[in-house]
């Protein structure tokens, strides 16, 4: 009766099956709510030619930025890729492909991917470079473009608490892209700060139901702050 005990006990186990050329969906916004240790594990494994879908690509030396150091990433799908000198260098040198996607469209593509919706229309990006090559259609006098959904081989997610069933809750704005990412991976791995007893999470307030989750691991996190802003006085 271990079918619903999704807890694994090593990062090797957590990322087992990741192979060169796969697509990895990674949660987080900036450095907030990123699966720090799962990223580190990918670096250790040395997996190459990855397509990584994540709102941002970390910073130099932290977050997804560490996967740039050994050129493990072939292509990034993101909405914003500033604050990363190595990223810029590899992009300009043609060593890295980047598909810039509006943030809301990216979030919706991932949700749609997990929800069995292969494509949807959105007004976002109509009339801009994002619309190039995409179908345009009018609904009620407004123009929309057709956007395909995104799924991945692996989804790597940072949660706060989880139970052995894979039910997850997120902490504050560390939620961000994580819930959609969790639904869109063939294999979804969630690392959390705490594994709680079955029944400890209120069923009505679970952010990610366990049906989406394949593996859960507990870790410790640096949680680096990108813009430390404090109130005056």
């Amino acid at each position: 009766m271990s079918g619903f005990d999704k807890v694994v006990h090593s990062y090797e186990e957590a990322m087992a099956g990741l192979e060169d050329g796969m697509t990895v969906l990674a949660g987080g916004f900036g450095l907030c709510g990123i699966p720090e240790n799962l990223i580190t594990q990918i670096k250790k494994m040395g997996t190459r030619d990855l397509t990584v879908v994540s709102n941002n690509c970390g910073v130099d030396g932290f977050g997804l930025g560490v996967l740039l150091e050994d050129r493990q990433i072939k292509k990034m799908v993101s909405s914003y890729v500033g604050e990363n000198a190595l990223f810029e260098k590899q992009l300009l040198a043609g060593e890295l492909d980047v598909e810039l996607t509006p943030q809301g469209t990216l979030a919706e593509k991932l949700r749609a991917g997990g929800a069995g919706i292969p494509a949807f229309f959105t007004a976002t990006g109509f009339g801009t470079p994002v619309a190039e090559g995409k179908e345009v259609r009018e609904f009620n006098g407004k123009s929309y473009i057709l956007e395909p959904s995104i799924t991945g081989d692996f989804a790597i997610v940072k949660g706060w608490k989880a139970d052995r069933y894979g039910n997850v809750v997120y902490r504050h704005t560390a939620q961000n892209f994580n819930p959609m990412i969790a639904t869109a991976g063939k294999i979804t791995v969630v690392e959390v700060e705490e594994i709680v007893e079955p029944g400890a999470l209120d069923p009505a307030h679970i952010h990610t139901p366990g049906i989406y989750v394949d593996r859960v691991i507990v870790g410790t996190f640096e949680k680096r702050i990108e813009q430390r802003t404090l109130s005056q006085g």
Partner: protein
Amino acid sequence: MALSREQIAMRIAQELKDGFYVNLGIGIPTLVANYVPDGIEVMLQSENGLLGMGPFPTEETIDADMINAGKQTVTAATGASIFSSAESFAMIRGGHVDLTVLGAFEVDVHGNIASWMIPGKLIKGMGGAMDLVAGADNIIVCMTHASKHGESKLLPACTLPLTGAGCIKKVVTDLAYLEIEDGCFVLKERAPGVTVEEIIEKTAGNLIVPDYVPEMTFA
């Protein structure tokens, strides 16, 4: 005199209404939060998944898990809610945000806006700006009227890659408040001490100048 960054924010803040849900972009738009008129309550939406953004935290309350879309550490106000990016952009795309304020490189007489990419330089990405301009009915663009070299940013047609097409109706610059109607900029107000002539000179796009153009007033 051209408006300061703070004065631009103050002028924009006059457009706030009680009960508005507002998304403020990075830069001058962020300053608008400092000038909410007395007797008015607004809620700030941050597209990373926070509705009801509060002030910056203290050393005691700072938390890496509580940031805004500018990646600054913030707090949650009373009545706040926190949710996923998909839910956040459902609000934005679905037109539920009452006012969006953002910066731009260029706007034009057709309501086009360019704000995310300068070809030849590095592309950092559009973030949530394309969703914000496509989803909102009520958008205020704030920017300097002209570049440092005196080149107008209010154009007959944007020259840079667009962020959104035909979506901008209001612009506040350091010189003026303008609305975009029927393929023209309409001069509604001028900064205190700024002449209509200077505005005409620095507006490259077709500009309609009413007989009387009031000066902005600040409380």
